[in-house]
């Protein structure tokens, strides 16, 4: 098979994995090496496809042959998709060729399961090893690992990679039993726990002054949203646990997407993109805004409001806490004001040491006045009580119907 045909099949096979990050690697470059590559800092998106997703890494499967039968997946054994397999050399060459043209930050390599977990893992590792050891490649490598692979192999992968991941896919074993019968939450979590320990060890060694440690700096995972009946509260509770106990760098939420080879077990439908977006927003609130999952969702309302962002929805439920005074409110409180992001809160804290803040100041910080006004007191503005009491407050923030479709930015304000 032509290389281009393989690339088409094996990139298509990999595109349902949402992870694209190339950030958080150790700082390094090729000035004292033989090959190409540098890492460190925020990572770069070298292109964007019309699905709004960033292309940062060459994201491919080594092969889309797979003995597992995950019904949301185009590569499952029951699918009639065309199969292909790269040789290790082919992936190595593509990675280097793309990298040298500045198309990518590095490689994200995953694979269908062939024969068994260890055998597959060894194939994936061979690519990374060749890149690092033969070509002295210093770019970013993300390797997908398999929970059932031996811990030694996973650790070898971690030594060549900057990031490793295992996808949790679905939040309960009950869902996995139906939709991904070969997978197990228990085994996945065990593997994640072992990875976390190894990551911690490497971190300690670096802190101890061993600058040469070549080891991944983080792990991430992905869950599929909308394939089973799990609620947003289920997802967020799970993420909370993953961030806290497994030190996940990121939990990716991937709206269950139609595939050209649908399974009779799992009818396909349009992907719930807004739900996915809201989950990311809620995830940000937990990680950067000091919100607890129980504040965002309750047992009575286990799903996020699709029409309003979760911070605004929280503020509307907690009107009694507003308005707050921009001049005196604490950092934690300001972070909870709809329309104020982390950056602007930092700025406001700075500014107010020297001057009284007015609405015009907020405008110059590019804060959306209509959004913050009901919740903030400034030197020249005190929201009238009726603004906060009125039932129309929610109505005021509801998006125009057609805007829902276009909701795009992953960023949270």
């Amino acid at each position, binding site marked *: 098979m032509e290389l281009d045909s393989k690339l088409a099949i094996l990139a298509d096979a990999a595109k349902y994995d949402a992870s694209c990050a190339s950030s958080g690697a150790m700082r390094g470059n090729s000035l004292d090496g033989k090959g190409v590559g540098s890492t460190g800092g925020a990572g770069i998106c070298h292109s964007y496809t019309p699905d709004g997703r960033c292309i940062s890494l060459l994201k491919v499967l080594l092969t889309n042959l797979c003995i597992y039968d995950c019904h949301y997946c185009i590569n499952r054994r029951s699918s009639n998709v065309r199969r292909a397999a790269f040789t290790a050399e082919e992936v190595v060459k593509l990675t280097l060729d793309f990298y040298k043209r500045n198309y990518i930050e590095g490689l994200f390599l995953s694979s269908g399961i062939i024969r068994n977990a260890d055998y597959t893992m060894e194939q994936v590792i061979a690519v990374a090893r060749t890149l690092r050891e033969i070509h002295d490649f210093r770019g970013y490598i993300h390797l997908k690992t398999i929970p059932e692979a031996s811990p030694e192999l996973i650790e070898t992968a971690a030594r060549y990679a900057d990031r490793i991941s295992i996808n949790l896919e679905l939040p309960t074993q009950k869902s996995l039993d139906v939709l991904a019968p070969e997978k197990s939450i228990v085994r996945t979590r065990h593997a994640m726990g072992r990875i976390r320990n190894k990551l911690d060890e490497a971190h300690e060694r670096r802190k101890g002054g061993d600058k040469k440690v070549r080891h991944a700096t983080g792990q991430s995972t992905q869950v599929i949203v909308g394939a089973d009946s799990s609620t947003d509260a289920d997802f967020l509770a799970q993420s909370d646990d993953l961030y806290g106990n497994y030190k996940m760098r990121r939990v990716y939420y991937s709206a269950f997407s139609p595939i050209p080879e649908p399974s009779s077990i799992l009818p396909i439908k*349009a992907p719930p993109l807004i739900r996915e977006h809201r989950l990311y927003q809620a995830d940000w609130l937990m990680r950067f805004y000091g919100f607890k999952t129980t504040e965002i969702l309750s047992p009575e309302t286990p799903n996020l409001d699709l029409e309003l962002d979760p911070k605004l929805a929280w503020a509307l439920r907690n009107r009694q806490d507003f308005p707050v005074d921009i001049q005196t409110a604490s950092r934690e409180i300001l972070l909870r004001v709809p329309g104020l992001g982390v950056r602007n809160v930092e700025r406001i804290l700075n500014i107010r040491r020297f001057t009284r803040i007015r609405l015009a100041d907020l405008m110059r910080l590019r804060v959306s006045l209509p959004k913050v006004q009901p919740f903030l007191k400034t030197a020249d503005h005190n929201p009238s009580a009726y603004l906060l009491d009125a039932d129309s407050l929610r109505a005021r923030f509801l998006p125009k119907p057609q805007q829902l479709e276009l909701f795009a930015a992953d960023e949270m304000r």
Partner: protein
Amino acid sequence: MKCVDPGENFASWRDAARCLLEENVPPREVLWEKAGGLFSAARVEPPSSPRLKVPAAFVGLAESVSCHREPSRWALLYQILWRVVRGGERHLLSIASDPDMAKARTLEKNVHREIHKMHAFVRFKLIDTDAANGRERYAAWFEPEHFIVEAGAPFFKKRFANMDWSIFTPKGCVHWNGTLLTLTPGIPSNPVENPDALEAAWRVYYRSIFNPARLKVKMMQTEMPKRYWKNLPEADLIEELIGNSKHRVTNMLAEEPRPVKPRPKNAYLDKLRELTAEESL
């Protein structure tokens, strides 16, 4: 009114600004104008006296703002400098909502963003390979909005230390030969017209990694504005991918569900089954 030539970059503007500060010339009496402009601008001799104390944060800001193409940037910087040094507004740099500071931060942001986009959207093409030592030579054409080539270059040096490369732009060019980073004046048009052999594969990748069921065109365009498209080998696929996406999704939704194939005989799969059964006990 005093006409002063800011020169080309931060260093030349800084020398001029220092002189003006020493002579106590307030911002409203300075017209920043390139020599040869309408008024005859004076090139200012660098001051002889010891350096003025300027907050480090201002230097960083001024270095970035200097790269902006906005002609009023020099006056804006002098205005801020004046307020800090002569006006006693020592904390001005912390007041992001001050009108002058807000303007300056916007310019700074534009410049940082353009540097970032240079790192993202420069596309190298292989020119030749040295037969003797195998060293490859690459070149790229990029059209930045601001004067960011020098600021953006060290990234490429670190990343591509072991290949020779040139980045050509209308606003300055930069070259690396393995030991030395050299800057040369900008050129008006792309000297490397021929496509690179790898562009075909890159386009295959771009096409295949796109998911038609998740169309978010606006999001793509905010991050990759149209003005960059003409130098991106993948960008002429965008229209077609958007155009076909609806049709592709409709087809997917209309597909007959595939039956589940029986489990193959495989000892490994049997073991997984046993494990899962044990776990659920």
